[in-house]
């Protein structure tokens, strides 16, 4: 418990006597009670701490500040402090306060500065992605000179990891998408009695657009993020540095196998997605529109040209390249803190899905204009 300091004014000299504990817990209250001191006028001050029973560093700091304050106002201050332990505490505080400077607070940035920085960072990110591309290409030239340099073991490992294990989820998602699309359009088509056209609609939309996109989005969420997180963690634990000092080019060991594995497997995954989505559509057509399997198949081979299938498959390797490259690039951008793993993993998924959709739009327009 704190005890009120006694304040006593005699002529031009003020006497303040402190009692009890002067600690972290009592200083604030004591400070408040000293507020009235300001109203007195005096040119000498005696601070008496002789009956203070306990002094901690906060209390000592309070004494130091009090003394310094009055000295600044040209008041002669006398300190009465007997206890040696308390004196030592006070001296410790005085010594350390002399060498320490005030913290300069971080400068607040103006709106203009913030905007500038934001765009500058985007610019730097684009440059760094281009740098990554360039490096990829150059390393490619250096390593693709002989078959021996291609790391088949890693490629097969990645194929298993990011494609074969993704088969289930891709099959299920595309089956459901086929089901939903067919169900919604069946309702509309029934109104016009154009039941049989569901085959044309499903065939073209699924083969050309839906299956490649669904596959790419699932893979971006599944493998793109995994790449970013894996490589980011390797960067933090200095595994990448260790590889470099041992002469193992991370691009050859980590980047290529992933990109190649994904580029090989993406068309296969798209094919699976095609089949599963059509199966979903077929079931709905069968139940909802009374189109038998045979009729569906007949109509299918009649109206859905092979080119639609190829257009979808061709997009595969390109989407794969975008997803893998963005994921790995984000992994390599990870800085030395754990937060940036999360940040870059999120970014990798957002950016690769965005890139895939933009790329798909470009394809869609180009192919249609080319008459494919």
């Amino acid at each position, binding site marked *: 418990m704190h005890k009120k300091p006694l304040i006593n004014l005699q002529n031009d000299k003020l006497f303040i006597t402190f009692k009890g504990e002067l600690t972290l817990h009592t200083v604030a209250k004591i400070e408040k009670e000293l507020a009235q001191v300001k109203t007195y006028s005096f040119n000498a001050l005696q601070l008496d701490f002789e009956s203070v029973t306990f002094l901690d560093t906060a209390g000592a700091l309070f004494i130091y500040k009090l003394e310094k304050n009055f000295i600044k106002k040209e008041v002669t201050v006398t300190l009465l402090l007997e206890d040696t332990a308390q004196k030592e505490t006070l001296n410790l505080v005085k010594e350390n306060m002399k060498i320490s400077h005030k913290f300069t607070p971080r400068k607040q940035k103006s709106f203009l500065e913030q905007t500038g920085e934001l765009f500058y960072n985007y610019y730097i990110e684009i440059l760094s992605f281009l740098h990554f591309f360039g490096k990829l290409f150059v390393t490619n030239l250096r390593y693709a000179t002989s078959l021996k340099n291609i790391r088949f073991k890693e490629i097969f490992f990645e194929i298993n990891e990011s494609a074969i294990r993704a088969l289930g989820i891709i099959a299920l998602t595309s089956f459901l998408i086929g089901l939903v699309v067919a169900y919604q359009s069946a309702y509309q088509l029934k109104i016009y009695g154009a039941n049989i056209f569901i085959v044309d609609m499903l065939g073209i939309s699924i083969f050309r657009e839906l299956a490649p996109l669904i596959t790419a989005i699932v893979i971006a969420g599944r493998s793109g993020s995994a790449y970013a997180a894996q490589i980011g963690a390797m960067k933090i634990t200095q*595994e990448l540095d*260790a590889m470099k000092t041992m002469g193992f080019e991370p691009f050859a060991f980590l980047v290529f196998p992933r990109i190649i594995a994904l580029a090989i497997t993406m068309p296969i995954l798209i094919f699976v997605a095609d089949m599963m989505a059509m199966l979903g559509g077929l079931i709905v057509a069968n139940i909802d529109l009374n189109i038998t399997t045979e009729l569906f198949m007949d109509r299918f081979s009649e109206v859905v040209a092979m080119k639609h299938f190829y257009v979808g498959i061709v997009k595969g390797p390109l989407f794969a390249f975008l997803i893998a490259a963005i994921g790995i690039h984000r992994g390599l951008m990870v800085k030395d803190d754990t937060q940036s793993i999360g940040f870059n993993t999120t970014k990798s998924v957002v950016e690769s899905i965005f890139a895939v959709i933009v790329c798909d739009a470009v394809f869609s327009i180009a192919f249609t204009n080319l008459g494919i």
Partner: protein
Amino acid sequence: MEQIKVRDVWTILGDKIVHEGLNLTINEGEIYGILGPSGCGKTTLLREMVLLQEFAKGSIELLGKRLEGISEREAQGLRHQWGVLFQFGALFSSLTLQENIALPLIEYTELSEKMIEEIVQFKINLVGLKTEDANLYPSEISGGMRKKAGLARALAMDPKLLFLDEPTSGLDPISAREFDSLILKLRDMLGLTIVMVSHDLQSISDTLDKVAIIDNKKIIYEGTLQEVINVESDFIENFFGKMK
């Protein structure tokens, strides 16, 4: 013979100058320490020597090759002649200890599987790990063991140069002293040149032949440990005060 020559090296990170013209020379067979207060750029200098980071100006010569503008082929040649131990081991987390140590041998030599296995076993014993630890993954072993395994991996190719970043930090005192005597033993047995960054006073006085002290962006002392006390500097006063 001079193995490493650092001449007038400047390092600038962002808008902060880290090194202002460093000069040092490391001879064959020396255990050389780079010391200095935290944040003075010791590890940065080490990273520059092993081609992990670029410097702004000056030159570093390693085993007679200049690092600035080095060709990829020569750089690869150098990488086969050095071993690096990182502060936390930096073992590849997807490989077991044995696979970690065997990796450079598998990649760079034509040795048979059996031979590689024996070399790995020898290196594991050399650094004081047990043979039965060989099949553990880095996540399954302690920090001290990771360091020893990292050293075994650094020694896998029998390098001429060994770079150690804080080799004894995070080790208990007994393991730390064991590590020191191991380093001395390796130097004597294999004729290694060892460059290390360290804060461990005991380890410094037990192992180092020569030291360079970086303070205020410059090298304030290069030479033997015995004479370091005569140099006027706050850092030396604080750090070596106890040795007087």
